[in-house]
């Protein structure tokens, strides 16, 4: 097969190495390569078989039992539980997520002291890293190991630890098959592209990134608005230490990394011109989400904008089978709020916290594949790269507000 027609995931070694990126040995990279290929195989070769089994074996039986077509993804889920091809796809997908955690943790933990020392050196005496180590974690973070990360984002193996963040950063290139780019900042890049298309004259002076994690999707916005003051907030100290060190090593100096709970922030009313989040709302909770949106409303300056990127909502237009597949992460990948978040009427919640209907923005945003990572896609940019790996695709529902 020629280099130009290869459409598989890129070799892991194409990932960008910044100043706190862990050392990755030959075999550790090869382990990630296997997982990226296994994910691709499951999405393109096995998942279509699950749909065939549903259409040919499960749906006719279920329709006969119900006396109608299934009306809710819960009915589909109950009927699919005993379908052997679904069981196999689901068991294999779970295995890839667990193997990805083991692979990332093993490579990070073997160099724990060295990584923490590198982060500490980059962070020394910085007034742009503001930790609050007494911060009480919300129960929806403390109680859940999100997407099967043992210890989630916040657990520290030793004091002043960055290992949770280093593990997250090391593995995401494999999990997404390079779809988010060499710095895994595809959602930030998608926001930059969205703003250029929909708000080209928008020049925010103060910007807030909610649940920013290690700042993957903060830095593209900070680079787009180099004069702006950017605040990246997260509850997890390891993510912020690592993210701050990463930003320093990449030469980005207009971002403050602040440890706080975004349900209640210590900034004055109307402080920010642009408030956004990427893949964050689904990691809050049913009661926290309206508090987060109310806080966004309070903090937005007159003329300000907010925008949140998430995987697509389960609307009435979406087939119940697709909803069921998209809902896999809730029940198999430790995302307990995923199922509820994706059925919520977010515009209604935004109005309940005080926005006018005319201020609501619903749109879509997508990352552009890096042509160096995906030469075949670069040659035929409109052709679909492969069957969709639901929940992992670098294309999002964009929800937000703009002042009327």
């Amino acid at each position, binding site marked *: 097969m020629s280099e130009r027609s290869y459409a598989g995931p890129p070799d892991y070694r194409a990932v960008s190495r910044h100043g706190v990126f862990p050392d990755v040995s030959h*075999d550790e990279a090869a382990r990630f390569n296997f997982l990226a290929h296994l994910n691709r195989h499951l999405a393109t070769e096995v998942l279509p078989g699950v749909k065939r089994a549903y259409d040919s074996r499960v749906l006719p039986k279920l329709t006969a039992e119900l006396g109608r077509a299934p009306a809710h993804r819960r009915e589909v889920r109950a009927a699919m539980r005993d379908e052997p091809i679904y069981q196999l796809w689901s068991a294999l997908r779970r*295995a890839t997520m667990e193997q990805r955690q083991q692979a990332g943790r*093993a490579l990070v933990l073997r160099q724990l002291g060295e990584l923490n020392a590198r982060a500490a050196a980059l962070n020394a005496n910085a007034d742009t890293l503001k930790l609050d180590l007494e911060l009480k974690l919300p129960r929806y973070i403390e*109680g859940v*190991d999100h997407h099967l990360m043992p210890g989630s984002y916040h657990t520290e193996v*030793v004091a002043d630890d960055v290992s949770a963040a280093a593990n997250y950063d090391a593995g995401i290139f494999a999990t997404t098959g390079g779809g988010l780019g060499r710095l895994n900042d595809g959602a930030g890049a998608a926001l930059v592209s969205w703003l250029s298309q929909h708000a080209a004259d928008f020049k925010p002076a103060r910007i807030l990134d909610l649940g920013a994690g290690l700042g993957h999707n903060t830095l593209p916005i900070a680079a787009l608005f180099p004069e702006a003051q950017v605040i990246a907030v997260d509850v997890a100290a390891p993510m912020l230490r690592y993210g701050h060190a990463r930003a320093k090593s990449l030469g980005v100096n207009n971002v403050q990394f602040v440890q706080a709970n975004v349900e209640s922030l210590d900034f004055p009313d109307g402080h920010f011109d642009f408030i956004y989040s990427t893949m964050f709302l689904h990691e809050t909770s049913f009661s926290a989400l309206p508090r987060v949106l109310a806080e966004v409303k309070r903090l937005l300056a007159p003329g300000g904008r907010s925008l949140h990127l998430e995987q697509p909502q389960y609307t009435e237009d979406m087939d119940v089978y697709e909803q069921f597949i998209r809902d896999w992460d*809730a*029940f198999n990948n*430790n995302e307990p709020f995923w199922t*509820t978040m994706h059925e919520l009427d977010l515009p209604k919640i935004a109005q309940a916290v005080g926005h006018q209907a005319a201020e609501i923005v619903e749109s879509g945003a997508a990352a552009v594949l890096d042509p160096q990572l995906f030469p075949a896609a670069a040659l035929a940019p409109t052709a679909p790269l492969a069957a969709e790996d639901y929940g992992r695709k670098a294309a999002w529902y964009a929800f937000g507000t703009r002042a009327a």
Partner: protein
Amino acid sequence: MSVNVNQLAASKAKGKRPRYFQSAEAERTLNIAMVLAQELAVARERIDTLERLLEANGTLRRQDIDSFMPSASQAVERGEWTAAFIARVLRVVQQEIESIGEQKSLAATVEDLRQEEKLP
């Protein structure tokens, strides 16, 4: 600082692991097999790297591989690699043991959170 990397890297995430098959034994075996498949791919990739480098340099003679005798320190390095390898392969067994006496299902946690927050 003393961290058991092999064990800690293979830690279980919170929440009872979903069951996919009728047979727990089949489930366990599949997970072991998939790690073996991964490690086979890793070894294959490494051999491929070696062959290409050695071919380029013109330095390899096959009889040198068959007659190779590791030094004491080389033998220790290899032993440590094998121990880490086995900890990876048998991760699912470690996690089954870690889950003894645990825990509600993720669905029950979802339900708990819904009830706690008075969802309809």
